[in-house]
């Protein structure tokens, strides 16, 4: 087993042992059913069907990638970088015979892992919840489409993970890093809302790019352009973060 793999397992073990991670993953599993109750109440009260069963997982994905997953990513990155630098537990990792670039990579891989798990749980849970809803246009075509959308949604979330890791390295306490990550994310969303012409240059503007993967007409040109942009952002923030991590004195 390579050292990178071992280091990644270690980071995963630490992430999984944190109550915050467990709480967020449980929340992702439960939220679709809470949403379902709200939708049914609305439907019974007003008599309007807000979603069909086939649309529900995609609608849930919108909220998941806008709020819940970014928050989980910011929390994880803040704890794994700023938190460990602040309480100096990072020393117990850095004095092992593993190069720092591998440690940095292992932490990001663990964050990607928890993000992917969050998406998988969200998809399973929202699909299960959607079985309790009417699906006038058929259900199973929607399941395949939503699986594709959930898989695609991982790309902007991973890019967000690299940004968050980079930001966290500027702090020595997890709460400061978390607060700044949230503020930067909220500011980027607001800027994109107020100045749509700038939005194209912000990685945060593509948290809903899974929308491009669904529906009849999929624009591969647009998908390729956004993918390249997100990949570029990921590479820039990953290499910058890795460089900063390499130079950190602890």
């Amino acid at each position, binding site marked *: 087993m390579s050292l990178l793999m071992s280091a990644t397992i270690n980071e995963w073990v630490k992430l999984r042992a944190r*109550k915050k991670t467990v709480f967020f993953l449980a929340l992702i599993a439960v939220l679709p059913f809470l949403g379902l109750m709200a939708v049914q109440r609305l439907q019974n009260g007003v008599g309007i069907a807000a979603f069909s069963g086939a649309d529900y997982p995609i609608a849930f994905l919108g909220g998941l990638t806008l709020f819940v997953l970014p928050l989980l990513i910011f929390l994880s990155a803040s704890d794994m970088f700023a938190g460990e630098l602040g309480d100096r537990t990072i*020393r*117990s990792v*850095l004095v092992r*015979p593993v*190069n*720092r670039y591998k440690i940095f990579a292992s932490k990001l891989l663990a964050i990607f892992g928890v993000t992917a798990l969050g998406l998988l749980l969200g998809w399973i849970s929202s699909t299960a919840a959607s079985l309790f809803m009417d699906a006038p246009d058929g259900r199973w075509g929607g399941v395949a489409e939503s699986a594709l959308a959930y898989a695609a949604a991982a790309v902007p979330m991973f890019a967000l993970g690299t940004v968050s890791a980079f930001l966290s390295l500027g702090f020595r306490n997890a709460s400061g890093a978390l607060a700044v990550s949230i503020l930067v994310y909220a500011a980027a969303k607001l800027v994109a809302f107020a100045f749509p012409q700038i939005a194209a240059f912000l990685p945060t503007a593509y948290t809903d790019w899974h929308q491009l993967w669904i529906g009849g007409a999929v624009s591969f040109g647009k998908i390729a352009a956004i993918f390249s942009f997100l990949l570029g952002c990921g590479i820039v923030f990953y290499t910058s973060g890795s460089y900063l991590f390499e130079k950190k*004195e*602890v």
Partner: protein
Amino acid sequence: MNGDIVLDIQGLTKSYRNRRGIENVTLQVRRGDIYGFFGPNGAGKTTVMKIASGLIRADRGSVRLFGYDVNEQYEPAMSRVGVLIEKGEAFEYLSGRRNLELAARLYPGLPKTRVDEVLELVGLSKHGKEKAGHYSLGMKMRLAIAGALVSKPELLILDEPTNGLDIEGMVEIRELVRKLAREERTTFFLSSHLISEMEMICNRIGILHEGKLIREGSMGELLQGSGPSSSLETYFIEQIRAEREAADHEPANVRYH
């Protein structure tokens, strides 16, 4: 013989913004040595040890561990080294055992029984399943020492390993150092500001004062000619006084504290 040198520190200089730091520290630790790095608080011992274990970089100078440069060849340099710097913080939300398992996973080929062995060695067998956050200060220090020992290192770099321990704990650590040096030929590079502790276990001593290594040698060499009743403590006081007198006669210069 060069092959016997496990830690080779050459001309290390590091200055911090507050003008503390170390200046031109050169020393060598040979296989089988229990090298005591002695100096008052703030002398720069931890800085040297952090540089030696790759946690910070020197402004000038080099560190070679088993012949490998710690900055350029980090993995082979650290593969036979165990490190404890200051309190050796543990992940408090994990059990003591889990903390050690994380460390052990990074040494391919380590037997699975090793975690139990080191827990036993530091007297934490009964508390392995407890969260490290619930440990007392002394237990945390034992866990940190277990973390440094888990890879069966040939060289142990221990920065103030008895900090936070009660007298019984200090004696146990002292005996552990002697035992490992005797039975496994483990080499030690350890720091302390407790001179009696150094005198009891070390065969070589380096004295650091205000960032400079002012004396280095075997215990016999250092105390030679100091009279039958002399101790490392009196030797140290004499050396510090001599250094201060010499500094008072030097022209004003950049000082390393």
